[in-house]
């Protein structure tokens, strides 16, 4: 296939059928925006999970009446660990005050006595310590005599993982749906273009054009449509991100401690290249049946 010639003819095709292609690119851009928005959600959820996972905390609940020497020994052990950044001793009264402040339950629970709340050691892990390492430290701490229970927040992270898995599945489903939409829309657009240029194809075939020569410009047109749609969607998402991220950032930072991030470079490349590739496949498939002249 003569690529230069195919590009020239594809440009002519795009010029002649521009209205048809504008409609197709617009519809496909909407589909790509849905996919991109879901990917953006997954990316941010993933970033938050990673941040939380890496800024790990362990709460070591102490037995009622635990020996002060045992507690001191436990502290020494914890502070000696390279993975531990800080250890804070929380007394029952401090725990009660903290609970009443954070829970915002009013006067109903203010009468609770301090001894309802166990004393604890709040262990802050060094940034970057994996969740598995945190679990391992927690299981070892549970064996100390002064410890009644250890909370490593594993269940909470498990729920977050499930949420992330669900979001990823949603993104995957959407990606498949968008892929189907792109193939269908580009396929039909090219089919319309082929029908309108049927005489051209017939003439070319009668002059001795190979199937590759006839197919080339249509494949390039489909590729361009897919790429343009993905590009429009990425730009729309970027504009939305730039417009909203400052206001969302402060809320999110207050709630989760993380900031909004945009799609990664590889995700952007995958969207654009994927769009072009699916467009090319869609048009190649739909033009195939018109080549038997």
């Amino acid at each position, binding site marked *: 296939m003569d690529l230069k010639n195919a590009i020239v003819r594809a440009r002519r095709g795009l010029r*002649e059928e521009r209205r048809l292609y504008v409609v197709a690119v617009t519809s496909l851009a909407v589909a790509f925006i849905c996919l991109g928005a879901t990917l953006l959600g997954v990316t941010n959820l993933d970033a938050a999970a990673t941040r939380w996972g890496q800024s790990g905390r362990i709460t070591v609940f102490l037995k009622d009446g635990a020996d002060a020497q045992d507690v001191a020994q436990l502290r020494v052990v914890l502070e000696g660990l390279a993975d531990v950044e800080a250890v804070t001793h929380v007394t029952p009264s401090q725990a009660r005050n903290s609970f009443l402040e954070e829970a915002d339950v009013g006067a109903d629970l203010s009468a609770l006595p301090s001894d309802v709340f166990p004393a604890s050691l709040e262990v802050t892990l060094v940034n970057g310590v994996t969740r598995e390492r945190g679990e391992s430290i927690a299981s070892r701490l549970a064996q100390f005599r002064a410890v009644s229970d250890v909370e490593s927040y594993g269940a909470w992270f498990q729920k977050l993982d499930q949420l992330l898995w669900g979001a990823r599945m949603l993104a995957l489903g959407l990606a498949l749906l968008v892929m189907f939409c792109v193939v269908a829309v580009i396929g039909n657009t090219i089919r319309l273009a082929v029908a309108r240029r049927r005489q051209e194809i017939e003439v070319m075939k009668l002059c001795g054009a190979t199937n590759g020569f006839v197919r080339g410009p249509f494949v390039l047109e489909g590729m361009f449509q897919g790429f343009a749609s993905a590009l429009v969607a990425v730009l729309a998402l970027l504009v939305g991100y730039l417009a909203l991220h400052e206001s969302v950032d402060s809320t999110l930072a207050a709630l989760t401690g993380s900031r909004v991030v945009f799609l990664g470079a590889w995700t952007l490349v995958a969207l654009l290249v994927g769009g072009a590739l699916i467009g090319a496949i869609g048009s190649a498939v739909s033009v195939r049946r018109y080549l038997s002249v």
Partner: protein
Amino acid sequence: MQETKVVRPFPFFRAGARASQPQLSKPILVLEDVYKFFRPDQPTLRGVDLKVERGEFAFITGPSGAGKSTLLKLVYRELTVDEGRVLFCGRDICRLTDKSIPFLRRNLGVVFQDFRIIDHWTVFENVAVALEIVSMPKRLIRSRVAEALERVGLAGRGPELITNLSGGEQQRVAVARAIVPEPALILADEPTGNLDPHLAIDILTLFEEINSTGTTVLFATHDHSLISKRDHRLISIDEGRVLESQQGLKHWPGSGIHTMAG
């Protein structure tokens, strides 16, 4: 069970390949006992035997539905024979693979009654397409198209849109497209069917001029007034059979083609 033979593209039908001397000495087109059926009980062509020599000009005539177009379609492989052989330059084109058909067509020029030119393209683009498919350099395309347009009497009309041309001029564009790759054989399927008698004679004269440069021309028409004006070889098809005269209507045995074709 008969073994299916896989036929590779003939070198002659590959881009850039030239016919060898033995191939050049053979008749350009030979049909041997060709049958074509569209309905099992009624063949459109029945046992057609035909030989066309290099550089010949031949009319193919016969009533509508006699099989003129079918015969031409078999030559440019839009259709395939059901029985018999079609030899182009000594090669059996019925056995060509689908991939080789474009290379066969590059050795042929085909002109139709309905012109088959692209309305929204310019004259130049319509003619140049026959050279673009062989990836010819742009400069060469420009000179070859200009030359072809001059031969058909449309010199300097390249930038004009097809819609600005008359019917006769449009057919000239189609002829220019057919001759621009310098094919060995031109197949004209009722090329004057949509033109008035004056223009028809003009187009016929144009084909004769092309023939005078050595290109073989098969000119299918049912217009007896056109055939009667020339003494070319006449190949008449009626009910799928071929009857021939080597020297035109005047020399047709008996009372001529009029009685035979009704």
